[in-house]
């Protein structure tokens, strides 16, 4: 299974300590990686179809990017070999512009047994990439929920859309969806772990799907597990705080 990483902060921060740890813990996933972030309202993504590890070393570019990228929200993805594709364009995070924001999307999960037959009128790519189909489903759902804005919230739109996702296409899903202000995390399987780095004095929050977290002491990580795939959870994060935890 691919692995996800995110860091959210009240101001621009680098993830130079935690991105290499993420790479190390997810080193079994050798099929590509990506880092996405925001700068002045625009999305920037650096990704590669090369393994996150070359020999005993974290990929050179990944390491350098980890040191250099500074943003309030950073999302990273390490791709598993099972995902069945090697092209750089299909590495994550993915991005699109809708609801007047640039969004980053990063996904891990398993397709429903009956397949994921959703066809968006506005596909992001032609290739049969599950992450792309799920992103399109979420985007189209949010757009439709919030089309004639009548005071409804992003969370409300996302809840309805995620409920449709797991009802219409029962499978295993976990994703991060972020604009320049807020990060949503959804999961209906596995767990998302959060960690507040002590050295950042409460200014950043790190999230990952890597079991046990990224640091030596897994007790410092708080897990949000989800055992029932028919139900899900949505976390809302902004700055260094988990603002809300809701159930789907």
């Amino acid at each position, binding site marked *: 299974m691919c692995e996800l990483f995110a860091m959210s902060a009240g101001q621009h921060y680098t993830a130079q300590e935690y991105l290499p740890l993420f790479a190390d813990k997810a080193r079994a996933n050798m099929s590509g990686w990506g880092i996405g972030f925001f700068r002045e309202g625009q999305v920037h993504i650096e990704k590669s179809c090369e393994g996150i590890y070359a020999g005993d070393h974290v990929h050179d570019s990944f390491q350098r990017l980890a040191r250099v990228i500074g943003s309030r929200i950073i999302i990273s993805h390490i791709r598993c070999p099972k995902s069945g594709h090697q092209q750089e364009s299909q590495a994550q995070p993915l991005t699109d512009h809708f609801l*007047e924001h640039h969004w980053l999307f990063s996904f891990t999960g398993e397709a429903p047994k009956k397949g994921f037959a959703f066809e968006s009128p506005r596909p992001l790519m032609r290739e049969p990439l599950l992450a792309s189909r799920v992103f399109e489903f979420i985007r189209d759902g949010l757009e439709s929920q919030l089309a004639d804005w009548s005071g409804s919230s*992003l969370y409300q739109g996302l809840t309805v859309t995620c409920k449709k996702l797991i009802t219409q296409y029962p499978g295993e899903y976990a994703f991060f969806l972020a604009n320049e202000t807020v990060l949503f995390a959804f999961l209906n399987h596995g767990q998302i772990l959060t960690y507040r780095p002590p050295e950042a004095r409460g200014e950043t929050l790190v999230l990952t799907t890597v079991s046990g977290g990224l640091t030596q002491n897994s007790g410092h990580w708080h897990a949000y597990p989800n055992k029932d795939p028919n139900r899900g959870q949505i976390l809302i994060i902004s*700055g260094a705080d988990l603002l809300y935890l809701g159930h789907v």
Partner: protein
Amino acid sequence: MCDLFALSAAHHYTAATSLPLFAVRGRKNVHGWGIGFFRHRQPIIEKSGDQVFAEGRLHGSFQRLARVVNSPIILAHIRYKSSGIVDECHAHPFVLDFWSQSWLFAHNGKAPLIESYTSTHVPVLKAISDSARAFEFLRDYFLEAEPRRPHTPFLDILEEALALLMRQYPGEYNFLLTNGQVIWAFTNHRQFLVLKGSEKLEDALLLTTIEEGLSSENWQRLTVGEGSLGHLLLIGGGDVILSVDLFP
């Protein structure tokens, strides 16, 4: 009764059109005004004990500030005193720190019982009013809840604080609380009017308590649900992220 205004956008914005309209439509509030925003995460407040609108003219400084203040989040308050004296110190917004962040707070309501509240933390606000004490009450609750911060969503703690506030000091509360990234808007008595995508005012998210809104457009009225303790909005990046009623 005082009135509140907020602008939220994904990027820096001025409220050059809507702020003067807010002051004109709220001119019955004759006991001062204030504008608050953040620059590089530092709160900046300009406030006055003067009337915002007198002798057919807007206060000169308010008018100039409306043209100049440029921030993703702008709060404004025009005061009709129900507690405390009329001077700059008693005008809103107020600033206090908790959870490693500075917060701006602007309040509209009447809660005489909270005037007796004595904070157990420092600093305390110089103003002698229900609004100042209510803000200290919330700050104190968050400071005492800080050990739970790593694993408890912000909203859970805010809900607890509000429930306790209204149980121990019943009254009318209607406030805006912001750390420069998101705005929490709470009311247990008046409605909020919210507008997105204005063609006449700023194309950001605008919120006010002014009964008729600030333009002839389709302002959404968000009111307290039946049987609820109050209604709470989470706003950020120009969106309503979350909208919930609080139940006992």
